[in-house]
């Protein structure tokens, strides 16, 4: 399942002097690439213009492409969502920004009732090729409502694609794919790892698929499945486990909807054990869908009960306590060991 990433690596030499950049810089790079490439692409949101976005995702775009392609909106998320659907259904390719995850709730109506239904409702006469970028998740010591992991709200909605890259390369390639996708994409960006590390990302315009999971680490004893910022803790847990003689495979789901369950199932068919790790509250989080699919399709492969290591079923606390809320490396390690012990 790393084929896409690999082919990307091989095309890297085509671009001139690819630089090592952060995840957020990869976002900016992808936006700039596609705005150059396709004149129907435009960016809109609060403070995305001259200010370049509160996270700097759109830094420099206004200067490069002008205010007609980088639109500051009035301060209203309903407005952003509605205008975006309007633009997309008339042939433009808007990339909207929700300033933070906690502010996207007023967008739900337009996303669910219109974006996700435009093609379906009109039998393909009108469509809605839009991207909604959402800085997502906790752990940055931010104020209230700036730390939500609310992807589950969208994963039950037909007509949407819901993705979440967790590396600079995947951010670049998946954002290009999202913009080119003829249907609406909710593009979650794990803000905690916006600047976690740099990676060489060729600015070659190569998109990555939006329907595959990425196996980040091979293993034989237990499959750790995660997405977003938790990829960090999960990889660390895998290293710790290795020191204790447990070989953990790590899968970054990357695209939640549609889910590439085949990759997960194949891994679990080898390991027999699965630990699902996510930030969002446990109950009815997207981890439930993965566990459910295992219960349906991989039951005979499982040698231990499925484990979920998640946020608790409460709101992420303000920042003095938030790290106690988020799944830790130790919790992942403990769950993997329980799975090993169970069998």
């Amino acid at each position: 399942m790393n084929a896409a990433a690999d082919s990307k690596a091989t095309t890297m030499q085509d671009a001139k002097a690819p630089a090592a950049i952060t995840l957020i810089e990869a976002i900016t790079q992808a936006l700039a690439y596609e705005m150059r490439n396709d004149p129907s692409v435009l960016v809109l949101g609060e403070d995305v213009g001259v200010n370049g976005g509160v996270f700097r995702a759109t830094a420099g775009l206004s200067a490069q492409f002008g205010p007609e392609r980088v639109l500051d909106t009035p301060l209203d998320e309903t407005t952003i969502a509605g205008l975006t659907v309007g633009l997309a259904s008339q042939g433009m390719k808007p990339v909207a920004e929700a300033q933070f995850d906690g502010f996207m709730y007023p967008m739900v109506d337009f996303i669910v009732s219109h974006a996700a239904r435009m093609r379906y409702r009109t039998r393909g006469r009108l469509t809605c090729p839009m991207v909604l970028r959402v800085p997502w998740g906790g752990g940055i010591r931010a104020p209230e409502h700036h730390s939500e992991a609310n992807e589950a709200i969208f994963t039950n909605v037909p007509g949407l694609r819901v993705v979440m890259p967790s590396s600079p390369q995947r951010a670049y390639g998946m954002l290009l794919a999202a913009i080119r996708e003829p249907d609406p994409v909710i593009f979650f960006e794990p803000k905690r790892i916006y600047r976690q590390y740099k990676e060489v990302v060729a600015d070659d315009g190569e998109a990555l698929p939006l329907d595959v999971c990425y196996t980040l680490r091979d293993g034989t004893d237990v499959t750790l499945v995660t997405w977003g910022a938790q990829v960090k803790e999960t990889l660390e847990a895998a290293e710790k486990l290795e020191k204790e003689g447990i070989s953990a495979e790590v899968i970054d789901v990357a695209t939640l909807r549609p889910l590439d369950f085949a990759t997960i199932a194949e891994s679990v068919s080898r390991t027999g054990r699965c630990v699902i790790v996510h930030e969002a509250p446990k109950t009815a989080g997207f981890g439930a869908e993965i566990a459910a699919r295992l219960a349906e399709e991989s039951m005979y492969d499982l040698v231990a009960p499925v484990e979920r290591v998640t946020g608790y079923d409460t709101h992420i606390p303000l920042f003095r306590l938030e790290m106690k809320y988020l799944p830790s490396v130790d919790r992942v390690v403990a769950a993997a060991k329980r799975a090993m012990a169970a069998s």
Partner: protein
Amino acid sequence: MALAASFEIEYLQYLAPDGTAVAELPEAFRDPAALLPLFKQMLFVRVFDGKAIALQRTGKLGTYAASLGHEATHVGIGASMGPDDVFAPSYREYGAQFMRGVQPREVLMYWGGDERGNDFSGMKQDYPWCVPISTQCLMAAGAALSMKLRKQPGMAVACCGDGGSSKTDFYAALNSAGAYTLPLVLCVINNGWAISVPRKAQTGAETLAQKGLAGGLHCLQVDGNDLIAVLEAMRRASERARNGEGGSVIEFMTYRLHDHTTADDARRYRDEAEVKDAWTRDPIPRLRTYLTAQGVWNEDMEKAWADECAAKVDVEINAYLETPVQPVEAMFDYLYADMPADLQHQRAQALAREGR
């Protein structure tokens, strides 16, 4: 007293309910012959409406929202738009839609539970019927923004009701129109009721037109049962839109002469006397009297046209009734441009359940 701002909102009416002119007619609409096709369209809509209601009553149609009483407003709006424009209806502006090429059979298919009704034969850019109240206004603002950004010549026109003017999406639309100086016309069709809730309960504002002031838009209130007033209001708004002067809110004063939909029983909440009174302002006799007085219409023409309408509607009804149900795969095939593997699997299951 220092003033921060002051405003005046104009009211337009040219034809009184009795069909006589009460003000000098706007130049653009002085030729009665030019009004004739619109009057005929109004009559056609009324015939269509009656037959659609009858279809519902006999179990051949789902819930249906009639347009009885709104004909002047709807047809006047439809007549004011061209192929460069984008129309965003709510769910009962058939008069406007017919003028934009939507087929009556498509209306019936939509209310008959078939998505293909939304695949209009008419203007391909127009928005489908919109059930979530007033969200069409904000999509229209987005459409207007796309025109402005691409320097296209058109305007976007959205309709909502008096109830719909309370919806936050309506406010978002007018706010955006003002912020971006958009070629957007928001038509508030005030028919007195939002299902059972009277206009008065929706807002403390004395007019719905004045809501446009919140966004710095051009505001007008017009007699929506007076076709000429409707046309003139739309002419002014569209001129502004096309000249880059920005958006308008027009309040059309009309009345819902039917139940809210066929699923509603207005006698539960509405005084029969009010309805009776409203019939005296019916837009159709008013225009008929005027056009007859102008010598361009008469009883024979009316009779002939009524027959033509009935025949035309019957053809449409038959086309609707004869349209076979979509196959089961239709619920999968229009969801994504590229169907995900999971869904292909479910589609195959659904086909298998049909023995296919």
